[in-house]
């Protein structure tokens, strides 16, 4: 069972980094959002430090969702989805493998870039690790929740806009606890542990429920 999944995972990673893949789009968008905000907010270093974690998280959220509607649509367009559903591999695991490849290609670069971009929004140097850690724990949830929306978008032609409307509300808890954990880790006074553990729980929850829900949506979309 693992060989088909490994093959699918590697194929999606290859596609993401080849020409026309989506891996670079997310990171460039993230870069654009985070570098633009300090110009808009103005040279108030204290304000910037206070909203810095939120900017990084909002940037990461939008960058993850950008292009996520293609997760299954690209396979549906060229007929690959039919064959993916005809494999011996259970469909939820297929979804999980695709979401994992999506996270490695778009989520992980954000985690790696966040400490560098954190300097631009005046996040204290000792807190850069905290930002990266919360993003590393929280962004998988975004990929997995987004997979559900992407699966629904397949059955609705041109469902990209609808996907954003469906998925954004579901990602708000992740955003709230991600920013709360980051802020707690930087300035306190609340303990870092509590929101971080909830964030972790959200990711694990999405890891179990997301693939099952997305697989159900894909089956429902059969026509």
């Amino acid at each position, binding site marked *: 069972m693992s*060989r*088909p999944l*490994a*093959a*699918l995972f*590697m*194929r999606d990673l*290859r*596609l993401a980094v*080849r*020409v*026309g*893949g989506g891996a670079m789009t997310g990171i460039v968008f993230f870069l654009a959002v985070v570098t633009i905000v300090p110009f808009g907010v103005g040279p108030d270093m204290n304000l910037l430090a206070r909203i810095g974690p939120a900017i990084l998280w909002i940037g990461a959220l939008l960058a993850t969702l950008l292009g996520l509607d293609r997760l299954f649509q690209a396979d549906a*367009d*060229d*007929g*690959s989805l*039919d*064959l*993916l*559903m*005809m*494999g*011996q*591999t259970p469909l939820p695991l297929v979804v999980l493998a695709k979401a994992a490849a999506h996270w490695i290609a778009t989520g992980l670069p954000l985690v790696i870039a966040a400490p560098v971009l954190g300097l631009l929004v005046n996040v204290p140097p000792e807190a850069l690790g905290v930002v990266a850690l919360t993003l590393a724990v929280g962004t998988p949830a975004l990929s997995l929740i987004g997979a559900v929306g992407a699966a629904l978008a397949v059955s609705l032609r041109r469902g990209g806009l609808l996907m954003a409307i469906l998925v954004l509300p579901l990602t708000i808890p992740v955003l709230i606890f991600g920013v709360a954990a980051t802020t707690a880790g930087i300035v306190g006074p609340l303990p870092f542990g509590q929101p971080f553990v909830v964030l972790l729980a959200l990711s694990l929850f999405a890891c179990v429920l997301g693939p099952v829900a997305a697989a159900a949506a894909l089956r429902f979309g*059969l*026509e």
Partner: protein
Amino acid sequence: MFRLVATDLTCRRGGRTVFHGLSFAASGGEAVQVTGPNGSGKSSLLRLIAGLVPADEGTVALEGGDPEAAIGEQAHYCGHQDAFKPSLTVAENLDFWTAFLGGGGEVRPALARLGLDHLADLPAGYLSAGQRRRLALARLLTAKRPLWLLDEPTAALDAASQKLLAAIMAEHVAAGGVLLAATHMPLGIAARELALGAAP
């Protein structure tokens, strides 16, 4: 004995009845050519057997197959779309499907048989329509499955490739496999005809 049995199949698409009360059976070693005018439900029938479209009424069963596995998991489906990624090379595409579909076949000999070995390292996006079709057919050789569902397999193929396809299909049937092909063209092998009615 390996046998595909369809009983009283009804398929509705978008509120329109495509076919109704369709029953047939095909045993191992038999080729069935599904014919009928446009819109008579040839493609729908193949997708329905593959499990890609739910049947509105009726059942499809595979006797003598793996009772644990769905029919789709024991079938090859070659639809109108070739399911290849243009940015991956020919060999990478076929490697992936061979691994995903659980085939143990060698990729290079299959490509050579279909005359694509010199293109193995070319991105699939540069292939012509006929070459893409041949690449899709290469999947049939690298992953062994007892039931083949081919939708217009001869489309875009030149005369030599059609002969090759006929030989590949004949081998599959001779090995005890079941073949269902929806096409207007002569298949090139002995096949029983299953004629679907005119579109209502």
